[in-house]
Every structure is written in C-alpha cells, then in structure tokens.
C-alpha cells in the first residue's frame, strides 16, 4: 500500500485564536480538527476526519447530544452572524440532538435548529434551518430561512425564500429513514462499544 501525507496548511491568522471549549462528556475523536472558539456541549460526538475551524467567523456553538459525522467541514465567513437560542451572536449555531452526517459542509453564518437532520454531502451556507427539519442528501441551502419541521429532498437546491416557503412538512417516513441513516454512527460512541 502507498500512503502519503499532506501537511495541514498553516493559517497565519490562527496564532492568537481562542481555544475550543469542550464539555467533559463530549467525545472528540483524535483525528478531528477543531480550532478557535468552538463551544462543544455535553454528550456531543465529533467523528474523525472532521474539520471545525472557527478561525475566520467565530464563535461556533454545538449543542447537547449532537452528532458530527466523518468528513464534515464547519467554517464561517469573517462577516455575518446568526442569533443563537441564547440570543447571542454566533458564526455557526448548531442546536441540540442535531445530526450532521458525513461530508456535510456548514458554512457560517448558519443556524441549525434542535433535532434537525442534515443528510450526506449537503451544504448549509448563509441560512437558517429551523428546528426538526430533515434535509436529505446532496442538497444546497443558501441565503434562505427554512421554517421548522420542513423536508428538503435529496438533490434540492434551495436558494430563494420563495422555494423555502413552499417546502413540504416532514412525514414520519422521513424521520424513519433519517434515523436509519444516523444509526450508522451510534456504534461510534465509545460507551456503546
């Protein structure tokens, strides 16, 4: 086998960054890359191969019981903030019991409400996704506010508020499929091994 390394590019502005604040009950894999003011809540799971960099936009908030799966990238623009549930300003707010699945890109300013599911390789940029939404795979959500409890099908490109307002409600069948997808990461939690 041939495996070659690639050095992580140095970020010149990251020298004076705040350190992440990680709750002692959270599990952050050693191959996860967290820098800057990232506030990680209780029982959060952060998988290997993730890159959570609050080096331009900051701070980031990741709520209780949330899963960040492999290959997820969370980053934020220098400008632009969202209001978190605590009425403070964040570059990225991710609520509690959220599932951010493999290879999702969350680019701040971005707000993701409690119990929302973001499917494989979808992108949320400059947007608010309300509580209890299900966003399926390979979707793009940009420059919009998605009301709570909405369903975004795979491959959807939602970039106007008109589109966002017409989205259908989540059905039980959607919730079941999302749980099936998330099941793949439950085994990751060290206590369940």
């Amino acid at each position, binding site marked *: *086998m*041939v*495996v*070659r*390394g*690639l*050095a*992580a*590019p140095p970020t010149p502005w990251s020298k004076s960054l705040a350190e992440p604040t990680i709750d002692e009950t959270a599990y952050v894999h050693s*191959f996860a*890359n967290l820098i800057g003011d990232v506030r990680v809540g209780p029982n959060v799971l952060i998988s*290997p*191969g993730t*890159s959570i960099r609050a080096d331009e936009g900051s701070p980031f908030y990741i709520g209780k019981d949330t899963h960040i799966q*492999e*290959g997820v*990238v969370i980053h934020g623009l220098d400008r632009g903030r969202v209001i978190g549930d605590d009425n403070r300003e964040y570059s990225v707010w991710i609520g509690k019991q959220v599932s951010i699945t*493999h*290879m999702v*890109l969350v680019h701040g300013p971005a707000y993701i409400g409690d119990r929302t599911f973001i*499917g*494989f*390789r979808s*992108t949320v940029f400059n947007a608010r996704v309300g509580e209890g939404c299900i966003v*399926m*795979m*390979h*979707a*793009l959500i940009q420059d919009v506010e998605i009301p709570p409890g909405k*369903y975004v*099908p*795979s*491959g*959807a*490109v939602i970039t106007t508020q008109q*589109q966002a307002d*017409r*989205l*259908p409600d989540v*059905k039980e*069948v*959607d919730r079941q*499929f*999302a749980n099936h*997808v998330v*099941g*793949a990461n439950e*085994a*990751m939690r060290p206590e369940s*091994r």
Partner: protein
Amino acid sequence: MFFPPLQPVSTVQSCVSGDVSIDPSASIASGVLLQADPECRIVISAGVCIGMGSILHAHGGDIVLEAGAILGAGVLAIGQVTIGANACVGSITTLFNADVQPSEAIASGSVLGDRSRQIVLDGRPGV
C-alpha cells in the same frame, strides 16, 4: 445538482480503524478514512485505488472493494457496500447500502441507495 467543492485534506495521514485488510498492491490517496464498525470488515483487494479524502464506513455489513476497483476523490461509502472488480466510481459519489457491478462506471456526483422520499419542487424532481 450542487456539490460543495472538495475540501483540502486536513488529516496528515489516512486513518484506519477496525477490521480493515488492505492488499499491498492497493493504492490509497491522502486523507482517506477507513472505518469498520464492530463485527464488520473492510476488504481492499489487489490493484484497488482510492482517491483523496474518500470515506469508507462499514456498518451492519462489510465493505468489499474487489480487484482493480477504483473510487474517485471524495467518495463516501457507508453501510454494506460491494464494489465489483474493475468498477469505476466517479468522484464525490455517495453509496449508502448499495452495490456496484463489476466493470460498471458510476458518474461523478451520483447517489446510490438513497431511499428517501422524492418530491417534485418547482416542477423538477428534487430541485
């Protein structure tokens, strides 16, 4: 369909965890993650090539890459997946509990095994 740009690889080395067997003639690019959950296996056969930043996560079954199979950059294979001999899976493809036949070529950016509810937005499916 929109795809986020492939991110630069941040992990210095590839990361392997669980029951993963890799043939010595396989070639694995930088930043690849191979993860087999308990009681699952990942098998990488002879002459297989895996592109940069790909993620293979075996869950509820094995992930088997048969001889000469190739996965492009940024491929995600999750669940139980078999990639047939000499198959070619284009970059940034997602495979969820799905198989690829031997010698089959899958276009870049495909999603296989997505059984979520499809709906029509703005008169176009899924758009």
